[in-house]
């Protein structure tokens, strides 16, 4: 509050005090329909700042759907008109702060009364909902800026619970999340009810939205590519190129136990070589030769065509 606005407010209050009682007019709403009974006490200087909601779509009065304070907080009769025998003013019917006693389902219910459709259709089935995460656990409603809805700041909210992912995105190989080009919600529908809460119906369908070249079908398929990208990849971040969960040859040897060079031990060669049993770890490892590992479209009449080498 600047000094100037303080003077303005002081003068305004002075005018109010000086005015004859009979000249008092009904309190006027400041932001939302019917908010006068709330804003007579609550404003931006209060413990619970409220006015900034007017900066948001929830404060756009030209939209007939815009809620009032009581749409979310309930009629809150005893909060507005403190009972004479109450030692302290009762809380509103529904509160959303960190120390709120309102059950999580009821808190989310206030939002779902309008927002149940589209991406939140299955909210009640989601891991978030069943673990007592409410909409207000992540979203800031009385603020002109909701950090979780901006991809450059969203992770601050998500990482307050998902600690493992916080360190993974800071590893040398990662999706461009810390750079602000992607966010958790690029891949996850955190309001959804499917396994891993993804934006599409499966891991592969989600990955293919950006990595469509892996969709195939290929002449020669590598089965994990169709089944689940996460069999080989750790999408949140690793220390291994290409977001692999483990380095070759160990990664490949989680499924492959073929004789000859595929069974090699992890090793670094002492010098230049083309011996494949010395090249399963260094450079691109097994992918030095099996370079089209997601699938190959070669129809060359060679046995190696089926091994992703062409």
């Amino acid at each position, binding site marked *: 509050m600047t000094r100037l606005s303080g003077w*303005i*407010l002081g003068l*305004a*209050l002075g005018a109010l005090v000086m005015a004859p009682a009979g000249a008092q007019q009904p309190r*006027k709403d*400041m932001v939302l329909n019917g908010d006068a009974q709330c*804003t*007579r006490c609550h*404003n931006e*200087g209060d413990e619970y700042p409220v006015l900034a909601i007017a900066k948001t779509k929830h*404060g*756009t009065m*030209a*939209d007939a759907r815009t809620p009032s304070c009581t749409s979310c907080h309930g009629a809150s009769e005893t909060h507005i008109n403190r009972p004479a025998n109450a030692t302290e003013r009762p809380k509103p019917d529904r509160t959303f702060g960190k120390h*709120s006693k309102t059950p999580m*389902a009821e808190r989310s219910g206030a939002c779902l009364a309008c927002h149940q*459709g*589209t991406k939140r259709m299955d909210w009640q089935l989601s891991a978030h909902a069943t*673990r007592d995460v409410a909409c207000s656990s992540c979203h800031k409603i009385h603020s002109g800026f909701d950090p979780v809805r901006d991809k450059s700041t969203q992770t601050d909210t998500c990482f307050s*619970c998902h600690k*493992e992912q916080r*360190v993974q995105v800071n590893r040398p190989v990662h999706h*461009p999340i810390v750079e602000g*080009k992607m966010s958790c919600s690029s891949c996850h529908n955190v309001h959804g009810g*499917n*396994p891993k809460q993804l934006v599409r119906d499966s891991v592969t369908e989600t990955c293919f939205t950006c990595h*469509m*070249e892996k969709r195939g*079908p*290929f002449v*020669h398929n590598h089965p994990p590519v169709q089944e689940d990208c996460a*069999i080989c990849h750790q999408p949140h971040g690793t*220390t291994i190129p290409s977001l692999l969960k*483990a380095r070759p040859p*160990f990664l490949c*040897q989680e*499924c*492959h*136990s*073929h*004789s000859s*060079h595929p*069974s090699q031990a992890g*090793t670094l060669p*002492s010098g*230049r070589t083309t011996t494949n*049993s*010395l*090249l399963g770890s*260094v*450079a691109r490892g097994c992918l*030095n030769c099996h*370079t*089209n590992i997601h699938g190959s479209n*070669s*129809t060359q*009449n060679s*046995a190696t065509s*089926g091994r992703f*080498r062409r």
Partner: protein
Amino acid sequence: MKKFAFPLSAMSLALAGTAQAQEVDPAIAELTRPESAVSVGLGYWSKDRPRLGTYDGMNQKGLYGLFDALINTRDDRTGTWFILDARNLGLSTMEMRAEWLRQGNFGVFAEYNRMVRDEPYTVFTAVQGIGTQTQRVPTPSATTIGETHLGTMREAIGAGFSKILGGGYDFRFSVKSEDKTGDRLWGRGGAPEFAAEPIDSNTRQMEGILAYVGKTFQIQGGYYGSWYTNHNSLVDTANINAAGVTSNPFFLSLPLDNQAHQLFVNGGYNLSERTRATFKVAYTHATQDEQIPVGAGVATFAGAPTHLDGQLDTTLLQAGITSRATSNFSWLASLRYYDSNERTPQARIVQPAAGCGTCVDNTPLRFETLTGKLEGTYRMAQGLSALAGVEHARQERDVPFGNVAAGVDAQRYVPWRAKIDETTYRVELRRALAETVNGRIAYSFSQRDGSEFTPTNEIQSDLINPIHIADRDRNKVKLMLDWAVIEPLTLTFNVEYAKDEYGHSDSRPYGLRDGNASVFSLDAAYSISEKWQLSAWYTHDNTKANQFGQRNVNNGAAEAVKEAHLEDTGDTFGAGLRGMILPKLRAGFDLLYSKNVNRYPETITLVGAGGTFPTAGGVTGAPLPDITNTMTRIKLHAAYALQKTSEVRVEYTHEIWKTNDWSWMFADGSTFTYGTTTDGTQVSQAPKQTADWLAVRYIYRFQ
């Protein structure tokens, strides 16, 4: 914390009846009008930073323009928003989105986005034709090599439209087209030689959704289409000698054009105030039927297809019901069927000889997964609640091969299971809604097994339990505690531990035996004063995997049994300080330190004659050393308010990244070089990368 301020409501009351005055009052407007900001500046990186600059478009030393803008306006009378969000306009990662929305009626948006990935490794190569479909690998290996920097750029444009139709209906439509160009590390698959995959492709996505949202019933249905077009299809690689004569032609295939079309319906119905049922049905038909390119002079099997007629059908059927049966008890039940069914006609692709010893057919696969889940939560006094649940998933995995002879399937390299069953039990105790301590402890146990394994093309391949279908017992424990110690201090503890044990037997001894993963995290937030806030966090994570395998006699290496004890350990520390130095001067400090150690100890027990590692041409192997990556980033910023609506912000960052990653090294630490008599390409990265960033921005805010 109570803040003192002159109540604006008093002014509202004083000005009651003079709405016009209220609208124009700057004190009210400041608190209630959407805000816009424009930021203009310059920044300078003191050195190249190939690793930490992989994605931010600033991987090279130099001066960068910094221009961001958020224009956020609303016409209160009509509820019409115009939002222009432009970021990184001075960088190769620029993006912008413009949206015009008449809230409650209709809206349109258009967006443009660039994303870069500058390869952190530097390539020194004489391979010719990088970036094209004709590449030549020198033989003998070149002595004159040039420095090459690989990388990719995605450049996307998108647009969309939404309209509220009334009566609870609305329609949304969006399209996106993205070009991806550049090159990435690849290999000339005929030999361990260098090549770079030329990337020049386009993807297009289109989605239209019609939705109805009512108080008790909601439904949406729509179409999602996606198309992939690759402007390259086949890369011709060959060796080339000093005289320019090519030899050993080798053709590498590339992904071919594909497309997918999805129809979906998703709905929910509130059976009562406490009970809700939902469903989703989705069907996707994906195809890949581009003409399969064949290199000049390349022999193909007479029956091999010229078009794959590739088809992949995906079906999702999902239903769920949730209920708060009483004020203390809630439950959910769900059923999910997901079918990924490749319906590509099976054809013989490779048959070099009549005997079919090395025949190759295409391998259309089918994975059907049916998952059922039942979960209940009981809420007790003092914010305590207990959850218990069970989930069962059955996967049926089609076995497309049919040329089993003499007890083995000649084309199968990995054992297969036709059925997988996994049951997970979970219990959880939570304390929420408390003033000072909230937390939860959760335990889950899952058990996976399946049908008999089908035989592979040789006995060695058949001795493994593949990680994703092996029998597995998994135990997981999670503990989270959020403790408001005193009013200005909160602490959050998080501990997670998981242990996997994989099935094995004497007849199938190989594969991952067991593994565990743990995460410990401590976060603290402390309000030093109204003007200064401090936060800090530390996370320790550790992952171990014990892998058991065999090694065959090969290039002088003896037959052996291997046990790899892989371990990844991470320690990450972050801290932040924000505060007000002077009424017009804000400042902040951030620290991020991360250290990751990867260990690869492997016990090789020889069971026959020969060496521990192969030896060929005087080159032998050596055990894999540990890899340590560390990253330190220190950031300082200060913002000085020139006026109420403008400020100058100064930023300084110091970052250090260090590694001893041996990925592109020989055993003695020298740079790996491709080939012996050919190629000669080297790939490397600086083991220590340090850079400083200094930037100045002018920021102007307005409404």
